[in-house]
C-alpha cells in the first residue's frame, strides 16, 4: 500500500481526530488561562490563607505527573460519586495542570512591572481598580506572553495524553488505525506531522501575533 492509498483510506479518520484534538486544546486553553490569572493573583495576596491555598494548589499540580492526574480524574473520581465524561475529565485535568504552571508565569509577570509604575499611578491619584486595569495589566501581557506561548505549545503536545482516557482524538485514531492495519510508520508518522503543522504553522504564529499586538499596545514595537 502506498502512502497515498493510506491517506485516501484513513485520512478522514485522522482529520476527525484532529478536530477533537483542537476542541480539547481550545477548551483547556481557556480553562488554564482563567485559572492562571486567578491563582497568580492569589499567590501575591497579602492574606496568608489565600496565599497558601494558591501555593498548595500550584505545588500539588506541578509536583505530580499529568498522566496520573488525568487517570485520577477519570478513574478515581467515580469512587467519590463524581463521574466525568472522558472529554470533560481530560479538559479539567489539562486545565488544572497547566493552570498551575501558568499561575507562576502570571505571578512573575506582575512582579516584573516596575514599582515606579505603581507609585506613579498612585501619585496621579488613580483609583485602585483603574490602576490595575489601565496601568498594570496592559504592561503584564508583553512580559507573560512569550513564556505563556511556550506553555501553550506544551499544552498542545499534552493533549495527546487524553487519548489514554478514551477521548477519540488524533492520537487515539492513530493508535486505532495502527492496531487494525499495522502500518505504524504511516499512521504515527502522519500524526506526528499533523501535530507539528498545528504547533509550528498555526499555534506559534498566532501566539507571536498576540505578542506583537500586546507590545504595540504599550508602545513597544516588536520586530
Amino acid at each position, binding site marked *: 500500500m502506498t502512502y497515498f492509498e493510506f491517506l485516501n483510506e484513513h485520512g478522514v479518520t485522522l482529520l476527525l481526530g484532529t478536530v477533537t484534538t483542537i476542541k480539547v486544546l481550545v477548551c483547556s486553553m481557556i480553562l488554564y488561562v482563567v485559572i492562571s490569572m486567578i491563582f497568580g493573583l492569589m499567590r501575591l495576596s497579602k492574606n496568608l490563607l489565600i496565599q497558601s491555598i494558591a501555593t498548595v494548589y500550584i505545588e500539588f499540580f506541578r509536583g505530580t505527573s499529568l498522566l496520573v492526574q488525568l*487517570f485520577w480524574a477519570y478513574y478515581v473520581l467515580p469512587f467519590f460519586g463524581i463521574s466525568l465524561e472522558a472529554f470533560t475529565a481530560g479538559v479539567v485535568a489539562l486545565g488544572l495542570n497547566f493552570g498551575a504552571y501558568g499561575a507562576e508565569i502570571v505571578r512573575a509577570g506582575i512582579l516584573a512591572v516596575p514599582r515606579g509604575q505603581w507609585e506613579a499611578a498612585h501619585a496621579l491619584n488613580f483609583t485602585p481598580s483603574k490602576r490595575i486595569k489601565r496601568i498594570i495589566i496592559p504592561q503584564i501581557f508583553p512580559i507573560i506572553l512569550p513564556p505563556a506561548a511556550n506553555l501553550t505549545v506544551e499544552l498542545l503536545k499534552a493533549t495527546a495524553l487524553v487519548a489514554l482516557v478514551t477521548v477519540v482524538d488524533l492520537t487515539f485514531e492513530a493508535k486505532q488505525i495502527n492496531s487494525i492495519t499495522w502500518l505504524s510508520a504511516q499512521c504515527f508518522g502522519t500524526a*506526528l506531522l499533523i501535530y507539528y503543522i498545528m504547533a509550528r504553522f498555526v499555534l506559534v504564529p498566532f501566539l507571536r501575533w498576540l505578542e506583537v499586538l500586546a507590545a504595540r499596545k504599550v508602545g513597544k514595537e516588536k520586530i
Partner: protein
Amino acid sequence: MEMGWRWDFAVEILPKMAIATFNTILAAGVGYAIALVVGLFFLLGQRTPSKIINWINREIVEFIRSTPLLIQLFFVYFVLPQFGITLSAWVCGMITIGLHFGTYLSEVYRGALEGVSKTQWEACRALNFSTLYTYRRIVLPQAFPIAIPGMGNYLVGIFKDTPLLSTIGVAELFHAATAVGGYNYRYLEPYTIVGVIFLTLSIPAAMWVRKLEKDVNKAQGKIKK
C-alpha cells in the same frame, strides 16, 4: 463494590508499588543521562560553522520539540521493528526520552553559553588563550551556573513524564498501579499512592534544584536577592 478508601488494600499493594518506584527512578535517571549527552550533540550541531548543518539541526530540534512525546514513543516502539530493529520497551523508552529531552537540554546549554558575556571571549583572545583553554577555564565555569536551574527542571520534568513509558509496557510505577488496579478492579488506592509517591519525590527534588541554584550563584560570587 466498596466505595471509599480502604487502608488494608492500600497496605497490601504498597510493597509492589515500592519496587515499581525503583524502576521509575531508574528510568528517569537513565533517560536523563542520555538526554544530557544528546543535548551536547544538538548543541554541537548548532555551533558548527556550516550553515546547512545549523539549519538541519534546528529543524530536527523544532520537530521533536513540537510533537508529543507519547506519539514519539509509539513511533519508535512500533516502527523500528518494521525495519528489522526489535528493541525492548525499556530501550525504546530510554532512546525516546533521551532524544525528546535532549532537544530541550540543548536549548539550556545554548542559553547558558550565550549568557557568558562576549567580552570574556575577547579578553581570552587578547591574552592569547587557546579555544580549548578558554572553554575549559573561562567560559564553561561561568556558563554552568546559568545552566543549573534549567538542567534541574528537566530532571524533574523527565521524572514526571516517566508514566508515559507505561503505554509501551515498561514496568514502572504507573504501569504497576494500572495492573494492580485492573486486577482488583480498584483504582482509587493505586492511583492515589502513585500521586503521593510522585509528590514526595518531586517536591524535595525541586527544592533541591532551587537550593543548588542558590549555592552555585553564591560560589560564583553572585549574590541573589
